[in-house]
């Protein structure tokens, strides 16, 4: 595919310029005048209740009101998507790709407004909110190019008297079940991959971020995706379960927790009466990511990168760093500097450019993470201060040093701003620890030895290994993203193989010999 050569990532907003920050704050103020956003029920749906989203830094601020979809709504949505499949899949690839590119253009026009929406609805600090919008645009552009390439089929060996072709075909309605932590980018990737290859989609955004999901759908519809080819289904668990189990669904693209992912894989494997296909599942499910620090590492670089990896967006990324495995010789120096760097972090509302990290997503997350911290009650820790009395869902960024391996904080995914630092005798020991972990998503290595870097890279211990840099912030096209073991099923999002999961290959072999002549 030539995708890589023509694709360019959408440039981030240059917030270091005062004028750009001022524009962003104006966009935020403007958005505030329109709150709460009202997301109407999809036509034909019979939503029973309402789904509300709030600003995590100020839960009194209502951001959006959306229908709380039911199982019946899910069924209705699937029926529409199924009906739309024939005509959408019949379009030529170029038309669908152009539609995605138009949608990318529409998102581009609303960059500031959409970033502001993420700031308010997901509590994403500005640079990360903007990066998420950029990534959404990137996915649309990248998969548009990828679909055009895929449409060429594959070249097969040809013998005299035989013409062989291979083409890719859409499969049917897909369910996209998306998380709140990358509320536009992740669904943009999953939805557009399914759509551009000719499938139709029922998309259920996370219950915490319906407005972000709606903004994406709006762009795709305005760009020309038929209303029934992409149906927005807001709601909580009930409609999601119905989508997964329903016989009309051909594929499920999911990003979220490991428990939910495994449940989906299990449920999707049970064929329903009348179902004449095997459902495919792409599940991207989390991690317990380690950064290995070799004895020759440059701590001036390692410390800020670890801080960013562990505490960016309050650690609520599946790629976030949870454990540091540091070689004994420099463990004390690293831990001391990490501790000091954490105390210098500023925690506050996402809309404040001066804050390094903001809230966690909601009260439930707050309680869950606090339970981890309370469970480690007797362990010494280093924390930064958090705002008090604001009602915001703040968790102090926390470092634990030398926890016993049995500790829950060392073993389980916390999905919050909590980091554990452990000593290892060597890089090899650290590698073993990574390999023995349940997850295999991202990982980091700080080393200045070319051989160590080469050695660890070749082992392929995680899906995305980052060397001498932070371990989050994968860029579409440049850093195809996704992991193995319990982290997910693959293939890598934003990589050359991703679209293949959404299609079926069919080949034709034609005999071109007539009366002994090749024609």
């Amino acid at each position, binding site marked *: 595919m030539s995708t890589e050569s023509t694709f360019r990532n959408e440039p981030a907003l240059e917030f270091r310029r005062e004028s750009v920050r001022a524009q962003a704050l104006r966009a935020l103020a403007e958005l505030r005048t329109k709150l709460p956003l009202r997301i109407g029920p999809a036509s034909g749906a019979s939503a029973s209740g309402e789904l509300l989203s709030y600003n995590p830094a100020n839960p009194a601020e209502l951001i959006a009101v959306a229908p709380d979809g039911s199982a019946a709504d899910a069924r209705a949505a699937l029926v529409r998507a199924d009906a739309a499949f024939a005509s959408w899949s019949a379009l030529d690839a170029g038309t669908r790709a152009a539609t995605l590119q138009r949608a990318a253009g529409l998102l581009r026009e609303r960059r500031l407004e959409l970033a502001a929406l993420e700031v308010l609805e997901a509590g994403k600090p500005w640079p990360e909110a903007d990066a998420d919008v950029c990534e959404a645009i990137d996915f649309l552009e990248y998969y548009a190019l990828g679909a055009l390439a895929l449409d060429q089929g594959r070249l097969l060996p040809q013998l005299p008297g035989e013409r062989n072709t291979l083409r890719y075909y859409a499969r049917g309605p897909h369910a996209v079940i998306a998380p709140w932590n990358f509320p536009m980018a992740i669904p943009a990737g999953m939805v557009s991959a399914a759509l551009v290859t000719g499938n139709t989609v029922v998309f259920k955004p996370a219950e915490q971020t319906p407005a972000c999901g709606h903004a994406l759908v709006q762009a795709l519809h305005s760009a020309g995706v038929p209303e029934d080819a992409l149906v927005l289904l807001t709601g909580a668990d009930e409609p999601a379960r119905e989508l997964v189990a329903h016989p009309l669904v051909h594929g499920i693209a999911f990003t979220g927790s490991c428990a939910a992912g495994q449940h989906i894989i299990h449920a999707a494997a049970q064929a329903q009466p009348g179902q004449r296909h095997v459902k495919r599942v792409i599940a991207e499910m989390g991690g317990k990511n380690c950064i290995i620090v070799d004895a020759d590492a*440059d701590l*001036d670089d390692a410390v800020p990168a670890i801080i960013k990896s562990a505490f960016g967006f309050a650690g609520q990324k599946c790629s976030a760093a949870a454990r540091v495995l540091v070689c004994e010789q420099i463990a004390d120096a690293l831990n001391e500097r990490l501790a000091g760097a954490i105390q210098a972090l500023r925690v506050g509302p996402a809309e404040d*450019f001066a804050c390094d990290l903001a809230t966690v997503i909601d009260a439930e997350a707050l309680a869950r993470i606090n339970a981890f911290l309370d469970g480690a009650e007797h362990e010494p820790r280093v924390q930064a201060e958090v705002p008090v009395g604001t009602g915001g869902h703040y968790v102090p960024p926390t470092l634990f040093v030398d926890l016993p391996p049995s500790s829950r904080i060392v073993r389980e995914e916390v999905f919050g701003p909590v980091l554990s630092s452990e000593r290892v005798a060597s890089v090899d020991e650290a590698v073993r620890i990574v390999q023995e972990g349940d997850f295999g998503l991202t990982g980091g290595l700080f080393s200045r030895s070319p051989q160590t870097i080469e050695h660890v890279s070749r082992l392929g211990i995680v899906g995305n290994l980052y060397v001498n840099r932070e371990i989050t912030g994968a860029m579409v096209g440049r850093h195809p993203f996704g992991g193995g073991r319990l982290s997910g099923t693959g293939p890598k999002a934003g990589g050359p193989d991703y679209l293949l999961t959404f299609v079926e290959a069919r080949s034709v072999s034609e005999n071109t010999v007539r009366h002994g002549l090749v024609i």
Partner: protein
Amino acid sequence: MDDAQLEERVHECGQRLAAGLAGADTGGLRHPLAAGERRMMRSLIGDPRLRAALFRFVDVRPACHSRTELVRHLSEFLEEAGAGSGNARRLARLTGRRELTLPTAGAAGLGVASMAHRFIAGEDAQAAAPELSSLWEQGRCVTLDLLGEATLTESEGERYAQRCTQTLRALAQMSAGWAPNQLLEHDGLGPLPRANLSVKVSALTPHLRANAPERALSAARDRLLELLRLARELDAHLHVDMESLDTRESITELFLELLALDEFADGPPAGIVLQGYLTDSEEQLERLLGWLEQHPRGAPFTIRLVKGAYWDHEVVLAAQHGWRAPVFTDRRSCDRHYEHLTRRLLDARAGGMALRPAIASHNLRSLAHAIAYSDALGLAPDALELQVLRGLGDDTAAAIATYGRRVRVYCPVGDLVAGMAYLVRRLLENTSNDSFLAAQTTGADINLLLERP
């Protein structure tokens, strides 16, 4: 004086400076480094892979806890470079031979350390004292810069502030005994302190944020305030360096805000840096000049004009984010703009502002242009200060002193760990294809080097 006449004067000045470079008898220009290093630099300029290998070695050198570690790293770097570099292959074979291994490491380690000492005046001000006074005796004044690891924590910021305090005191004390020197100590605006410290605001606080410059204002305020008070008390000059663009707003805002306080109305003399390689540097200069006009102080304000030391960083950062590079990407435009800013600074001084222009460069053309233009304006010779880096600009400093102009040598002090990062940067600068010094090393004709950019 018209353009052509000025050009002629620039060439004369340049020729005179070139003649003053020690040992300018080798046809081409003599490189400022010693003969062995000159040979090494020349081979590095022509061999980018070997260059990368050696720089990576210099970089990791202080993190190697044993000789075995040193050897391992050196061999690995050379081996990696070996694919495209015959020199590196030969060297790799040497380091790979077991019986040579430890001595090689020792030599390599020492080589790096001695190279570092060429650029770094000593562990601290005390250790550098003999060097500083000998520079003074040779007719060169100094400014000290404290090398250190990055400041990532409050205690690191506090430690750096303490080092600044100690250094200011040590400088004031040691320089009291230096012999008087009219050119180095006075200009038309008044006395010039002998004690001169260059401070990095990013080392004072872990709170510099590109997206929130106001954060540094509260975080670094107290420490910088104390340093300004001490400088005033000791009658020393306090300069703030400029770093990557991400920190410019914090540094400028903070420094100007403090200097505007009543308590600093009459001192200390202070200064800031203007990086000419930034495409918006003229706006920045106008902002500084505007501020000066609105805040007349008793003590003159120095603007040190440099090209800028973070060129690669700025270009890479911008490319990775998809931004337009904030720096000139064409060498000649960068130099042309530098000359434009030089003229703007000297014009402002000639217009009567309490401004001390300092032209910091190793480029004879840039220096000669400043001298010629300053003369053309009819400014007194002491109105213009020229500055160079220790190690890179030693011969240039000698030539400027011989010319009878004031030259200030920027002297970094610090330990080996901190020194390596600085050394790598200076070596890269010195061997980059785009550098004046590299051209000088490879023996380019002086007339070409003095050509108008």
